[in-house]
């Protein structure tokens, strides 16, 4: 019977994939995308994930997990598997899987979709699961500690520095998304600003009024957030709207100031309540989006491939290979997840047998979020999609932009864009780069069709608020983590700097972290070609670099523990990541195309400046832009070096193991039988 069901799923999945692959020229229904994704996930989970768990990792249900052995009623605490799944998913899923596919849709719907599916089932899910397993077997240690224990001090240092660097780039690119979504949008800006006092209120409630009543506080907070979306509309129709109408130059400083404030305020006042609220918003919106796509199953309007596979795309430059693979990191494979899979989730895991469901399954769900983001981007008229996402430095504004984009073969008119902007309650939707506004338009039209079209403007600003809220949460939390890492590093040089509660140290390190990402954010905003083209590839490369570090640790452990025969499980995705990351980084360093190569762009601008070809306002910022391109190029070289150092260390250790030379000992903790299995009724 079971065999028949699985055969049915396989056949249906094959039909869905066939529909997608065979449709050329005519439009295809998003139902087939969703159906193909779900079938691929089901088959991959049943046959690949469970095979890895039982044959390669050999999970042992009788073995006590760190949560059981070190139970303290606080962070180590055996938890129901669905609750652990919820915590794990909420921690791994951020704005990345929503933004990446939206940007990659410039190549058409097919390349991104295929990479999201294949990358997730063979790469991302495997990474999350094996790291979760190895960390569980090592008392819940973090990725950095595992790298040091298993690959030696060089690997450990590379992992630490890599993590700090990716944090800075991640925050700056996310900050850019928020700035672009809020510029000249009083409705959006006032709504997002209102979330700060709402968080204060909820924080005070949960700390002093009713300590620890998380559910009550969260319900009050969510209601206030929804109210702030509606009241933003009133502000927009009132004279005070000018108070919230900012250009991007002002918004940058507001975001930077906010980031610094959030880093030095006590967590209970801002960070913790904001995190609760954004988690509920995120889960609720993901469910609503799935529901809307399921009942609406709209037609996909974007072609399977666009002509921009040749590298001339307006949103970011670069050919389909390798740039689709680094543009979509989260949703296919994201190195950042290995930081949650190690260290955080193992402390909740009550039994090793839940590892495939939480590690592999959690990432499958994130991959599905990415598929939904792809649907939301590609159900828009391609002309509208490109008008929203193309920077004005490239296509001009208003009438010019409409003409340029129509000439590419994606017809769009000025009237159409003006009507759309009016429907969404915005002044203009041209050149709103960063992915958030186009996703919000996509979501608003889906929600509008599913739950009532009269409220389009409210849906649009709800979507903007939802994205901004959890981007700002990532920004707060990331700045704080970066601060701790920096304090840890500086503590080695001068002891007092390492004390996390010493105020001068807190102020200094917070300012240093905020200044680092603030710098990249500022440059991204003043760049005339749009900071997305500059920062997003850098983010993709750094995230894939971290994934390669995690997979190197996993492959090293597999070989050291005598499982070389199965080392391809993490070794193959590692080889692919090393290949695409190196290709992309190489192009960013050496390409002579000024939109791709960092150094080429710097030289080109320097030449124009010295020949006096630039208009005065561009000449004023040119030196900053030149310096920044050189920094970006140097950073790319640095990422490439870290990547290959870790791979080389892994290969060296594996080689020594194979020919019988001594290697760092396997750091797995001894087998202690679980007591939970007999006396704990499992569900």
């Amino acid at each position, binding site marked *: 019977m079971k065999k028949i069901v699985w055969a049915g799923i396989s056949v249906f999945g094959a039909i869905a994939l066939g529909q997608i692959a065979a449709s050329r020229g005519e439009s295809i229904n998003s139902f087939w995308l969703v159906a193909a994704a779900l079938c691929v996930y089901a088959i991959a989970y049943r046959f690949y994930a469970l095979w890895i768990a039982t044959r390669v990792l050999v999970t042992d249900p009788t073995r006590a997990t760190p949560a059981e052995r070190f*139970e*303290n*009623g*606080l*962070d180590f*605490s055996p*938890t*129901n598997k*669905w*609750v652990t799944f*919820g*915590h794990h998913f909420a*921690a*791994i*899923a*951020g*704005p*990345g899987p929503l933004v990446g596919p939206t940007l990659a849709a410039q190549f058409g719907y097919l390349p991104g979709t295929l990479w999201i599916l294949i990358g997730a089932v063979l790469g991302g899910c495997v990474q999350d699961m094996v790291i979760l397993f190895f960390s569980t077997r090592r008392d819940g240690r973090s990725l950095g500690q595992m790298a040091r224990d298993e690959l030696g001090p060089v690997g450990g240092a590379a992992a630490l520095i890599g993590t700090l660097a990716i944090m800075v780039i*991640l925050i700056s690119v*996310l900050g850019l998304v928020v700035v672009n979504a809020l510029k000249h949008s009083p409705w959006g800006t006032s709504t997002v600003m209102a979330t700060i006092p709402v968080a204060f209120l909820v924080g005070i409630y*949960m*700390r002093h009024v009713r*300590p*620890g*009543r*998380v*559910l009550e506080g*969260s319900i009050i907070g969510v209601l206030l957030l929804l109210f702030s979306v509606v009241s933003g509309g009133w502000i927009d129709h009132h004279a005070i709207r000018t108070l919230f109408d900012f250009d991007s130059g002002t918004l940058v400083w507001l975001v930077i100031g906010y980031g610094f404030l959030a880093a030095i305020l006590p*967590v*209970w006042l801002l*960070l*913790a309540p904001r*995190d*609760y609220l954004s988690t509920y918003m995120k889960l609720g919106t993901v469910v609503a989006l799935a529901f809307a796509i399921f009942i609406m199953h709209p037609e996909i309007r974007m072609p399977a491939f666009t002509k921009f596979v040749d590298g001339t795309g307006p949103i970011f430059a670069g050919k389909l290979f390798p740039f689709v693979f680094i543009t979509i*990191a*989260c949703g296919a494979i*994201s190195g*950042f*997840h290995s*930081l*949650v899979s190690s*260290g*955080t989730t193992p402390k909740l895991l009550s039994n090793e047998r839940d590892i495939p469901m939480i590690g592999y399954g959690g990432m499958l769900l994130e991959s599905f979020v990415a598929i939904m983001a792809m649907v939301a981007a590609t159900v828009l008229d391609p002309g509208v999609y490109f008008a929203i996402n193309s920077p004005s430095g490239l296509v001009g504004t208003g009438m010019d932009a409409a003409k340029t984009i129509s000439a590419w073969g994606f017809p769009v008119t000025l009237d159409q864009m003006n009507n759309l902007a009016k429907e969404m309650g915005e002044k203009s939707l041209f050149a709103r780069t960063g992915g958030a506004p186009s996703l919000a338009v996509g979501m608003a039209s889906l929600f509008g069709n599913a739950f009532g079209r009269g409220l389009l403007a409210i849906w649009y600003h709800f979507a903007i608020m939802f994205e901004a809220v*959890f981007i700002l*949460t*990532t920004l707060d*939390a*990331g700045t*704080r*983590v970066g601060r*701790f890492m920096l304090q840890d590093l500086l503590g080695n040089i001068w002891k007092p700097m390492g004390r*996390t509660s010493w105020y001068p140290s807190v102020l200094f390190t917070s300012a240093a972290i905020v200044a680092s990402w603030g710098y990249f954010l500022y440059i991204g905003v003043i760049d005339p070609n749009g900071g997305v083209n500059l920062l997003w590839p850098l*983010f993709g490369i750094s*995230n894939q670099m971290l994934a390669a570090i995690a997979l190197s640790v996993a492959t090293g452990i597999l070989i050291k523990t005598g499982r070389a025969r199965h080392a391809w499980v993490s070794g193959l995705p590692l080889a692919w990541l090393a290949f695409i990351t190196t290709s992309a980084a190489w192009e960013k360093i050496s390409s002579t195309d000024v939109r791709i190569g960092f150094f080429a762009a710097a030289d080109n601008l320097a030449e124009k400046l010295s020949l006096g070809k630039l208009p005065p306002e561009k000449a004023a910022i040119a030196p900053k832009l030149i310096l920044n391109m050189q920094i970006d190029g140097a950073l790319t070289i640095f990422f490439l070096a870290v990547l290959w150092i870790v791979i080389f260390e892994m290969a060296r250790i594996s080689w020594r193991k194979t020919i019988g030379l001594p290697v760092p000992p396997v750091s797995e903790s001894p087998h202690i039988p679980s007591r939970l299995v007999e006396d704990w009724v499992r569900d």
Partner: protein
Amino acid sequence: MNRIFELLRQLSGDDAYERYLAHCRKAHPGREPLSRKAFFKLETERKWSGIRRCC
């Protein structure tokens, strides 16, 4: 319905203090557990000191 509410409380951390009390009674019967307010003060500090959110 009750079961769903229980799961929701666990998921949000609403019942963290009760779980902590249960653990204290079982593991350290002689010791006085923290008060509700003190417990959540400590918990909030601890929870947001590590990597909790991704991209």
